């Protein structure tokens, strides 16, 4: 029984690891191919199956005028939009979450839980429902096809995540902490800033990571709300996926775009192993 279980366990773990890694290996291999080695027959291993070339990687930094793809600018756009929107969402979301966790609100039939639900329920909204009115809204105020417009939209995507994680987290930070601070003569803002916040670093890190992940991976809003002035990374990469697809530069740009967040996987794992995350995520 237990031998069979151990065998099945390792079999499953191996199987899943291969499944997870397979598309990455395929992308790495493809990124070194040329037209011939993509289109003649399926090839896998460089030098053995095909002669590797760096062409797929070179076009990434060439300007479009010279037949390149130039993903450098979209890259910085993506970083800017993701980070700015995450930062604003975290700040506003954390403040709101603190209020919802510590004070009681009453307005008609609305209670704390309803307000929290209102924040979180924004995630239910399918992007398509918002994209048409946002399109018209942003063109009215002249923010269509601009970084600032995207930041505004991304706040709607990210603030619910920040509130969701931080409300749960603050609920587990003992109330005695702020009460002691208040007795010691802090005003509520000082109590929050000097006592509660420093004790909430793990929660803030988790909320921050989730905001960055969900900001970085969004495609649809960037696809609808920007055209030529501003391009984000996912839109740029998908645009390569036209009728005659250059699989090599597609693979190379895909790898470059997903690389930064894979570091996040290591950070998350560190926190899991140290046991800090389990409190923040429940």
């Amino acid at each position, binding site marked *: 029984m237990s031998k069979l279980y151990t065998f099945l366990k390792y079999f499953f773990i191996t199987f899943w690891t291969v499944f997870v890694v397979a598309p990455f290996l395929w992308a790495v291999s493809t990124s070194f191919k040329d037209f011939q080695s993509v289109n003649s027959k399926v090839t896998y291993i460089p030098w053995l199956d095909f002669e590797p070339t760096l062409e797929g990687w070179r076009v990434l930094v060439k300007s479009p005028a010279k037949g390149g793809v130039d993903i450098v600018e979209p890259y910085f756009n993506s970083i800017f939009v993701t980070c700015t929107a995450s930062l604003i969402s975290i700040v506003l979301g954390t403040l709101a979450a603190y209020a919802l966790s510590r004070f009681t609100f009453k307005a008609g039939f609305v209670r704390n839980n309803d307000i929290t639900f209102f924040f979180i329920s924004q995630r239910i909204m399918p992007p398509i429902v918002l*994209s048409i009115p946002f399109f018209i809204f942003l063109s009215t105020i002249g923010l269509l096809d601009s970084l600032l417009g995207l930041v505004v939209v991304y706040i709607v995507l990210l603030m619910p995540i920040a509130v969701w994680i931080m409300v749960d987290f603050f609920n587990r930070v003992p109330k005695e902490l702020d009460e002691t601070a*208040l007795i010691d003569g802090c005003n509520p803002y000082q109590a929050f800033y000097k006592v509660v916040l420093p004790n909430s670093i793990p929660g803030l890190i988790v909320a921050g990571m989730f905001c960055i992940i969900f900001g970085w991976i969004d495609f649809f809003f960037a696809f609808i709300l920007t055209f030529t002035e501003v391009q984000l990374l996912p839109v740029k990469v998908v645009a390569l996926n036209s009728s005659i697809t250059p699989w090599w530069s597609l693979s190379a740009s895909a790898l470059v775009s997903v690389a930064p967040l894979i570091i996040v996987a290591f950070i998350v794992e560190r926190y899991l192993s140290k046991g800090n995350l389990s409190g923040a995520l429940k």
Partner: protein
Amino acid sequence: MNFKHKFVFLFPGLFVLIGILIFPIIFTIRLSLSGWNSYTPEMNFIGITNYIRLFTDDPRFWESFFRLSFLSVTTVILQYVIGFALAMMVWREIKFKRFFRVIFLVPMMTTPVIMTVIWRTFFHESLGPVNDLLGGLGVKPILWLSDPVIAKFTVIIVEVWQWTPFMFLLLLAGLLSLPKEPFLAAAIDGASPFRKFVYVTFPLMAPISIGAIIIRLIEASKIMDTVFVLTSGGPGTATETSSFYIYIKGLREFQMGYAATLSFTYLVIMIISLTIIAKVLTKLMIKE
């Protein structure tokens, strides 16, 4: 505590969110009562004509809705089962534990559309590695993207790859935060691993499971990126989900008014059904 302070904390976030959302929502409702399309691009008023059309004369929307339900429920169940299994496996000591944890987390950090572009080359019917390797085993080429039934499963495979890590993360974090005493008690009673799971681990994990499933269902109901790149809703309408159908009506055919009707109806259905699912799940999984 002083009365005013709590509003200083709450209002910035609340009002920014409401401020950004109020226009789109009112606008969608108003638009849904208009006949805005590419011939008459104006905000006229045609009453509930669009709603009548939706409820009496648009089987394609309802088909896309049931397809979406099928896809999201299937993927979430698979993600839950696999995610739970993976979390259980790397919960306790195991060789290369941290390595496997990182590997299991990686897909959720990658951009769905971008990975889907890679998956598209992966499942390419003549130049992709899957059919090539299967061909080596003597399997006939499988029409991953152009067969109406198989294309659905291809979408499911990609979605499961992408989002099982999310389930895995929430469940593993939950497992790691469980109290030790119930497990000690079960060990003293000499419970088998199977009974331990059924009577100790699973009930303790029920609240976390419900949370994780509901969050995933919410996210899965928005499935769009994968379909958009992988199959564009095709072949035919075989993988067309509600979002994608609304996208076609609104931004390809420019029937803005009708698309707004679809959007608003879809949103209402989504909120109602997710609330019901949440209630039912809570009842089913927490018996005491």
